[in-house]
């Protein structure tokens, strides 16, 4: 072998040795796990000035970890990279207000839901949807009841530019039911579509009602309001759960137990009232 090839193979071996030395992570009944959150979705999870994650899900994560007697580290990861990052082993759990859907269940596992929060539109106070009297919660699993309401909404939002976060069930909902009626603009984070709503680049937003309520309570959004019916189920799945790799069955059982306890003793209700100003406890 020439000198170059010798050096190249030595280097490859050295790098792999370093990688192994970097450490493998524990499996089965872990004592320390890493939880990833988006860090840009107030009030569920957001990043404070010191770079640390804060919000309802962070408090809930710490609570669940103390119940499970596990040491938790919380890291921040962009929304689009959460599932690929989980499957690549960068962290062990996702708690980022991610809905449990069949599509995601093909790739990862979810714990039982720890929150149910319907999604809805935020529009200008002068828009036709705000002036109509359409309201109520509709479960998309019952399409017979939901479809007429959606059809009534279509003329009220026709032609508007609606901002939505990319790769979310919100975006899938708009694509499935309102494609062609509205101009869908996809953003990497909800903070970015909030900025564009304030700037007037989009006419409306479609997101979870608690997140919209938090956004609209800030200065600069006085011209906008939440309007129209709220939707859950169907394309929105079964609520918000913690995402885990399919192979981590022991961890899944631990989370399910802990979440069950948190629902039973009212912790979820307390935390959600504190952060979201609404009770998002799922039915037991």
């Amino acid at each position, binding site marked *: 072998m020439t000198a170059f090839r010798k050096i190249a193979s030595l280097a490859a071996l050295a790098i792999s040795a370093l990688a192994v030395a970097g450490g493998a992570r524990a499996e089965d009944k872990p004592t320390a796990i890493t939880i990833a959150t988006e860090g840009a979705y107030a009030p569920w999870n957001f990043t404070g000035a010191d770079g640390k994650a804060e919000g309802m899900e962070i408090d809930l994560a710490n609570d669940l970890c103390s119940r499970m007697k596990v040491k938790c580290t919380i890291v921040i990861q962009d929304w*689009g*990279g959460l599932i690929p990052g989980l499957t690549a082993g960068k962290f062990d759990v996702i708690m980022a207000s991610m809905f449990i859907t069949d599509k995601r269940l093909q790739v990862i596992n979810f714990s039982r839901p720890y929150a149910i929060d319907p999604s809805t539109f935020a529009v200008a106070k002068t828009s036709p949807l705000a002036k109509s009297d359409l309201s109520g919660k509709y479960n998309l699993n019952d399409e017979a009841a939901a479809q007429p309401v959606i059809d009534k909404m279509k003329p009220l939002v026709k032609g508007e530019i609606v901002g939505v976060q*990319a*790769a979310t069930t919100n975006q899938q909902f708009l694509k499935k039911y309102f494609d062609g009626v509205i101009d869908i*603009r996809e953003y*990497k984070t909800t903070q970015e579509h909030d900025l564009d709503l304030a*700037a007037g*680049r989009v006419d409306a937003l479609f997101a979870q009602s608690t997140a919209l309520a938090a956004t609209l309570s800030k200065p600069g959004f006085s011209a906008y309001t939440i309007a129209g019916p709220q939707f859950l189920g169907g394309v929105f799945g079964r609520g918000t759960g913690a995402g885990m790799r399919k192979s981590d069955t022991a961890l899944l059982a631990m989370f399910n137990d802990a979440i069950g306890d948190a629902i039973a003793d009212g912790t979820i209700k307390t935390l959600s009232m504190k952060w979201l100003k609404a009770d998002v406890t799922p039915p037991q």
Partner: protein
Amino acid sequence: MDITFLADTLVELLKGAPLTLELAATSVGLGFVLALALGLTLQSAPAALRWSIRGYVTMFRGTPLLVQIFLIYYGLGQFRPTLETLGLWGFFRQPYWCAILALTLNTAAYGAEIIRGGLQSVPYGQIEAARACGMPPWTAYRLVVLPIALRQALPSYGNEIILMIKGTSLTSIVTLLEITGVAQQIISQTYRAVEVFACAGAIYLSMNYLVAQSLAALEHWLSPHLRTPNIEDAVAIEGGLH
């Protein structure tokens, strides 16, 4: 190696290619015109104008393109009332035009430097000869200085074109659906980040390869005087072997 998935992904990604090419071509074209104007102005402008141009060039060459895109898109979006009164809001409202503005200003700053280097490399003797022939300044520029300067600048400018094509991938971060934007959409459906990004990379690589080859051909065509003549040509000119 899931060939069907890769093939499907490539076809999906190519739907973003027209926008990539459109962004790159428009910004390079407009940027070239602006860079040429700035480069020529730098030669013979009053000090204040020269300093402002230099300031603009330093600012846009010294900060990352990503910061410039964010500043123009989100930063200026904060000033919507002012822009509305100026009648400019229709322009800044569209992500496409914000991206074009950011890319154009960026490439014009680099282009101005490249063209300045090209103009300085024109041998002074040529300019003297042009004046001696009695050419008015603008004709001298048109017939003598610019052809030499631009040919000199071509390799560096070719590099800049390739950098711009790569730069369009950043516009995915402000909602534009060019190749990288489409790639992120596909990943959000399939969660297969590595394969999709690898396909996207392959498309950019092919584009840049084609551009590099075309530029090499253009340089070759523009510099016959620098090539060593081969024997057959010399013999033909001489009228055949005696």
